[in-house]
C-alpha cells in the first residue's frame, strides 16, 4: 500500500498549496467550450480546466482528477460525472 502521493480533495482556496501536484476537485460546470471547461468550485470560486476534453457529455457536477497548473486551473487526467445534484438539501425547520 502506498500513501506517498495522495490526491487530496481541494476547493479553489486550497489550489495554490498544490501547484504541480495531483488533486481531485468537485465542481459545478458553468460552461464547456471544446478544450476548456469553466466551473464553479465548492467555495463559489471559478475554476478553469484546460486540457484533454471530457470524453462523455458532462453532467452538472463533475469531479476532475489532475495536476494543478496555477491557483485557478487544473490539467485534467480523469473526469468523473457526479450527476446533476449533490449534497443534502436541509429541510426548512431548524431541528435537523
Amino acid at each position, binding site marked *: *500500500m*502506498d500513501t506517498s502521493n495522495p490526491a*487530496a480533495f481541494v476547493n479553489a482556496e486550497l489550489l495554490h498549496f498544490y501547484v504541480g501536484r495531483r488533486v481531485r476537485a*468537485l465542481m459545478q460546470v458553468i460552461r464547456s467550450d471544446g478544450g476548456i471547461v469553466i466551473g464553479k468550485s465548492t467555495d463559489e470560486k471559478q475554476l478553469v480546466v484546460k486540457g484533454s476534453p471530457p470524453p462523455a457529455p458532462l453532467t452538472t457536477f463533475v469531479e476532475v482528477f489532475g495536476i494543478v497548473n496555477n491557483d485557478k486551473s487544473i490539467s485534467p487526467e480523469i473526469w*468523473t460525472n457526479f*450527476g446533476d445534484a*449533490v*449534497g*443534502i438539501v*436541509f429541510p426548512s425547520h431548524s431541528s435537523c
Partner: protein
Amino acid sequence: MFSSSQFDAAAAFSGGGFTSSQPSQLNDSSPAASKSRDSQGLVPVTVKQISEASQSGDEKSNFAINGVDLNNVTLVGMVYEKVERNTDVNFVLDDGTGRIKCRRWVNETFDTKEMEQVNDGMYVRVYGHLKSFQGVRQLVAFSVRPVTNFDEIPFHFIDCIHSHLRSKVKVEGITSTNPSSVTSFNTPVKSEPNGSQAPSSNPGYAQYSVDGLKDCDKLVIDYLHQHSDMSDERGIHVNELSRELKLPMDKIMLSLKTLGDDGLVYSTIDDYHYKQA
C-alpha cells in the same frame, strides 16, 4: 387436542427462543460505554488510517486504531489496475489519502458478475477484511459495489471521522463535548470534500454528545477511583459518597445502579458499600 398441543409447543419454543435472546438484546441496548470491549463490526476507514493502524501480535495480524480492532472495514475509492484472473480479481483502490491493494476471490458466477461491473477509473465501495502479507497491508474484499450516488464519497469521509472520534473519546474517557477539538476537523488541511451545496455548518458536531457516563455517574466513579487505595476491601459507604459529593441519596443510588449494570462498580459487604470494579 392435537392442534392445541402443537400450539403449545410452538408457543413454548418461540417463548424459549425469545426469552433466551432477550437478555442479550437488553445488553445491546445498554449505554455504549460498556460496549467498548468488543470489536466493532464494520469500521469505515481511509487508506491513511489503515497505514497508521497499529498491529497487535505477530500471529493474529490484528490491526487496531484507537483500541478498536479493525477486522472488517469499508472504504470508498477509485479503482486502478484491475487485473482479472481465473480465481481472483486484483485491483488498487485510491481514496484520495493513499492506495491499497485489494483482492476479490471469485468463486461463483455472482462474484464474477459483480466484478465485471467494476472498471478502472470507477468509484466503488469496498467491504473487506484487512490482512498483512509479507509486511504489506492488503484488503481481501468480499463485496465491491460501484458508487451511483456520489454523496457517498463525502459521506464516507464523514463516517470515518465520526467513527474515529467515537472510539478516540472512549479511549480518552472524555464525557463532555469539546468544541475546540472538533472544529479542528473543519479546517481545509484535512482533505474532506464538500458538496457543491456547501452546507453552512456541520449540525452533527454542534449536537455531538458522547455516549459516556452522565455527570453524576462520572462523579461517583471518579470518587470511588480516587479513594480505592485508601479504603479497605469493604469499599465506600453510600453515606460517604452522598456527603462528599453533596448529592442526594437517591441520585447516588441511581448512579450506582447504572454503574453496577455496566459492570463498573460492585457492592461489597452489603448494598451500601461499593467499590470500583
